[in-house]
């Protein structure tokens, strides 16, 4: 109730720009990988790594919009699946189809995000349930559309974004198109989150929805937009992943939780109000780097799961601890 119950810093312990631990983590992991496998330090090594992580990084940065606004989006994985399946159905091996398929898929993504947002904002269904329902529905739609198995190939023009490298570049020798996508969309998402009114309003809505409404923030529009951004990035992630890996019916499954994990490792606050796009991308890099490192160590899938679980809990517990220490 009163001012006194708010945590306050003592001037000495609080130094403002404090480096997000996720960046330290990423650097440490990458160094560890290079020590264990010097080939990773060569362009093919780290470029392959970046190429591999692009889909998750873009997806997480988009999912962060919903997290910062105080919700969850469990439907992103199924949107990726739908994108890949839908594109393969529509393409019928015609290289020229890419130019209309990607915009069409983005349009479908926008509609899905809009529905998620409307259901959450106006039907007041908790986002966890709303997007869970959407996830189940979209997986079903993808199956229905394809009849259970992919019915077409993705043309090479479509796979360009996730698969191809520009070669013969000085210094770095090769540059995957996916990495260019990562930089471009990363910057756009960073700009939207951290350099626009929209981004500030997202933070406000996630921080205190009622106060945001009373401060004149168009809460519904902002929340809906967050779901739309998330769905659009899921489509982009789907295009890149589909490009990298080709068609399969469950291509996106599991990505929704990985995206949340990446955001959380990047220091995002679940239930809203805090989160950073660069740190989330770093979180995605860290996650993938951990997996790579575990593979190098010859540790099997079960250990990966345990490590992922411990890191997830540890990251949040650490953030809570740090915040509390800063507060008192």
């Amino acid at each position: 109730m009163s001012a006194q119950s708010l945590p306050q810093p003592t001037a000495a312990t609080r130094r403002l720009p404090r480096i997000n631990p996720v960046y330290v983590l990423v650097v440490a992991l990458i160094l560890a990988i290079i020590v264990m496998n010097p080939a990773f330090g060569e362009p093919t090594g780290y470029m392959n790594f970046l190429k591999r992580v692009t889909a998750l990084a873009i997806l997480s940065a988009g999912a962060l919009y919903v997290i910062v606004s105080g919700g969850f989006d469990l439907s992103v994985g199924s949107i990726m699946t739908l994108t890949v399946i839908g594109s393969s159905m529509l393409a019928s091996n015609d290289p020229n189809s890419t130019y209309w398929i990607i915009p069409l898929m983005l349009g479908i993504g926008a509609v899905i995000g809009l529905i998620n947002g409307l259901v959450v904002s106006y039907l007041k269904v908790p986002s966890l349930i709303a997007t869970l329902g959407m996830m189940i529905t979209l997986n079903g739609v993808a199956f229905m559309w394809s009849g259970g198995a992919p019915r077409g190939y993705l043309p090479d023009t479509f796979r360009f974004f996730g698969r191809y490298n520009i070669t013969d570049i000085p210094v770095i020798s090769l540059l995957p198109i996916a990495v260019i996508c990562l930089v471009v969309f990363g910057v756009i998402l960073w700009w939207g989150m951290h350099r626009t009114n929209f981004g500030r309003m997202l933070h406000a809505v996630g921080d205190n929805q009622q106060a945001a409404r009373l401060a004149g923030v168009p809460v519904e529009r902002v929340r809906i937009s967050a779901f739309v951004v998330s769905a659009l990035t899921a489509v982009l992630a789907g295009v890149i992943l589909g490009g990298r890996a080709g068609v399969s019916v469950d291509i996106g499954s599991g990505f929704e939780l990985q995206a949340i994990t990446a955001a959380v490792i990047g220091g995002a606050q679940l239930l809203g109000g805090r989160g950073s796009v660069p740190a989330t991308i770093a979180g995605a890099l860290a996650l993938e780097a951990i997996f790579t490192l575990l593979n190098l160590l010859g540790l099997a899938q079960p250990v990966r799961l345990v490590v992922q679980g411990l890191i997830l809990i540890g990251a949040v517990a650490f953030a809570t601890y740090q915040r509390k220490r800063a507060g008192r």
Partner: protein
Amino acid sequence: MQKIILAAAVFGMLTGAAFSQAPNFDDPAEFAKQRDQLTATFNGPADQPYLQYAGDSMADTASFKKEGPWTVCFSNAGVNNPWRVVGYTDMTEEVKLHPEIGTFTHVDAEGSDDKQIADIDDLLAGGNCSVLIVSPNSTAALTPAVEKACAAGLPVIVFDRGVTTDCPVTFVHPVGGYGFGIQAAEHIIANVPAGGKVLMLRILPGVDVLETRASGARNMFKEAGLEVLGEEFTDGDNAKTKSIVEDYLQRGTIDAVWMDAGATAVAAVEAFEDQGVDVPVVTGEDQQDYLQKWRDLGFKGIAPTYPTYQWRTAIIAAVNTLKGEQVPSPEWILPQPAITQDVLDQYINEKMPPLHYAMCGCEDMPNYPQAWGGTE
């Protein structure tokens, strides 16, 4: 640090109790048997592999003879992967060929044992079934439900994965997992010099038919003196498959990739392509995308199969049972041919979807290829 305590507790509990008997996936007798069956001659019409069978033990089904129209009930583990989709299409098309089948009731357990047991209960309670076909989600778990159905006096046909009871009329399946592993491994051994490096890619551990594929191949590689670089699990995920192959390529050369299933074979091939490395021996399965990639790039491929035509056979077995005809029993073992370079072209059909399984035995059916998603 509660987590550590917990982890310790769980570890303790599990290790303390770890006197389990893992199912035996390394059975030399079965290995030898399947190796022989691969090359054996099968009974039945030569151009209809789905009617062929090994051995001559038959069951008399006169007691199940029934006048049509019948209600054929099918409890399906799921249609959650392309192999099952193709197989299920085979099955529904086969049903159309038998006018005596009045109703075909299909319940889908969506990959859950628990649900499939409930589904069978539902069918027994109200399904009015003349015959029950079960494609079990897992062997041990579905056994009680199948026994219950047998006890209710229904003729039961099981296919794909079996059950541990012999109460069903028959268990329809191709030669088996060892056979699959053998075909792929033999091809690699024949095409890679001694000491060559083989990467084994598997979908996931624990699935019986996949474990035997790996076990068969592993033994043969050891005997042939090939070096197995590693056995990695891909979860059937293209992206992960590609990453694994890329990582291994970064660390050295690969002379062959052995795969326990073909769905991600193309991703493995692409990993070589994208690194600008010549594609070595990569085994696969009878999916169109792999067959076409194999033809286009001209690497040394082979496609062992786990034929989807067994789904047709299950219906045929059910129909024969209800007609009171003889049915191969207790097992109806179907041939399991591999697609080799010599016959590659006859299995490629560019009008079919990428994950269409070429060994579907369905080309002679009226709705081919539209029903399988192909174009005229």
